[in-house]
């Protein structure tokens, strides 16, 4: 289960460290082991200035404490979702969640999941699924929150993410 990609992200996490500005933030804890993640999302409204599925996830940053799987999964998440629309991101989330519950059977969609397919092996270890999903669940909460926030005006998001 410890694919090289996972270990790489674990050793050199991307986008770690909380950043400003942000539209939504979520703090999730894994009650069975105490692992924690705080994750922030910044959205850029669509050209129509809507904070809906067509908005862009312009930044994701996080701070976390946890095992290799939870750390690497947070890092891969940021790589995958930054720059995608909310709708596209939710599709990735669904695909990732489904893979995590696949018990290692079935073919994850590599086009959608990219590096995240490395986590397919984790799905064979039920006790670790929560680790892999921790950041994703936090991302979902933070994004829903962001969509309910006041749009900070076009462009801000991208600037903030730089």
């Amino acid at each position: 289960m410890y694919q090289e990609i996972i270990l790489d992200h674990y050793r050199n996490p991307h986008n770690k460290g909380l950043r400003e500005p942000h539209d939504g933030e979520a703090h999730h804890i894994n009650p069975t082991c105490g692992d924690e993640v705080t994750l922030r999302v910044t959205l850029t409204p669509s050209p129509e200035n809507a904070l809906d599925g067509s908005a862009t996830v312009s930044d994701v940053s996080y701070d976390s404490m946890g095992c290799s799987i939870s750390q690497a999964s947070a890092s891969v998440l940021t790589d995958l979702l930054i720059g995608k629309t909310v709708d596209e991101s939710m599709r990735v989330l669904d695909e990732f969640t489904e893979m995590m519950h696949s018990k290692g059977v079935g073919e994850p969609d590599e086009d959608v999941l990219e590096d995240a397919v490395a986590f397919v092996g984790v799905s064979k270890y039920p006790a670790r699924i929560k680790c892999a999903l921790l950041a994703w669940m936090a991302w979902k909460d933070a994004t829903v929150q962001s969509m309910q926030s006041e749009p900070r005006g076009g462009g801000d998001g991208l600037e903030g993410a730089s």
Partner: protein
Amino acid sequence: MTERELGLLDAEKLREDFEILSRTVRDGRPLVYLDSGATSQKPRQVLDAEREFYERHNAAVHRGAHQLAEEATDGYEAARATIAAFIGAQANEVVFTKNTTEAINLVAYAMSNSATAGEEHARFRIGPGDEVVVSEMEHHANLVPWQELCRRTGATLRWFSVTDEGRLDLANLDELVNERTKIVALAHQSNVLGTVNPVRTVIAKAHEFGALVLLDAAQSVPHMPVDVRELGADFLVFSGHKMLGPNGIGVLWGRPELLAAMPPFITGGSMIGVVYIDSATWADPPQRFEAGVPMAPQAVGLAAACDYLSAVGMENVRAYEHALTGYALKQVGALDGVRIIGPVDGEARGGTISFVVEDIHPHDVGQVLDDQGLAVRVGHHCAWPLHRRYNVVATTRASLYLYNTFADVDALVEGIKAAQRFFGTGPGA
């Protein structure tokens, strides 16, 4: 008539799965087990499933990251899904308890605990002026916890009567269930009368006033198809040991939105969100209500029992028991000096037949039956108020299950006659 004629269920064949049914008692008499209402016997398949768990997969569930712990957790959660499906529910709506009694106490204590729990549990608060409704035919397990809830909170206990024929008396339904009613706790099937109650009527009335309904299904789930969505209750409880499953496991089914709004009952490990030295938060249901290392092997055993019953078919179980009960009501009811306490017709009633034999105390009836290898129960069957209602101190109860035969009923009839002869009462005395 033999059960073969039904073509539905071959009791003789099923009996081979129950090792204990081939034993003898009291100087070599073959055992005739007519006490399944107290606890059922267990088929080999159930005992094997439990043993296999211990010998292959035993570990603390939801607590380890090693292979055994994973297998144990999988087994436990798969069992939950099987048991949930057996009553038409989703897995996350099923809470494991040690028995029906704990399941009822869980709901009753959640209600009193909500007084000091957060606003999110306000739905369950109860206090002076509020009412709890039960019936005169309740098992103590579905009566005393509500008496105690009322004592703790100042709420008022009210109850349905039963008719002379052994039916729930709905005459004052409109008066009993009203805007003060917080919860109605009612037997789905009586463990003394056999009566199957018209629960839909009561549920509909209770829901008019936003009251909750808990069904004590300890005597129904083992004997008939039960679908929680169809019934429409809010909570439903039953025990594994009365439905071919192991002792030490019971089930609380609850509507998910209600479980989610309920504060916990027993607290400790595995039911928490975050724990600080002076405060804690709760996990989501069902975990919130399952503190401590659970009875995983028993859950696996109960799932095997559900599989066994499903393979026979619960419709077949019901039909077979219905035929058997009809026969027993006729045969026992025809005896001089014997009075059946409960409906004498087979409609809307299960295979529990309680009776009194004129001038012979139930203890003495039971003793004579026991001497002939018949295992029945004597006493008030944990339904003392019901016995008082019928002006009897105790009754003799024969309770049937899928492994009983028409020959067992004949043996019962012969046994009662023998008791009458022995004590010089009854016909010919």
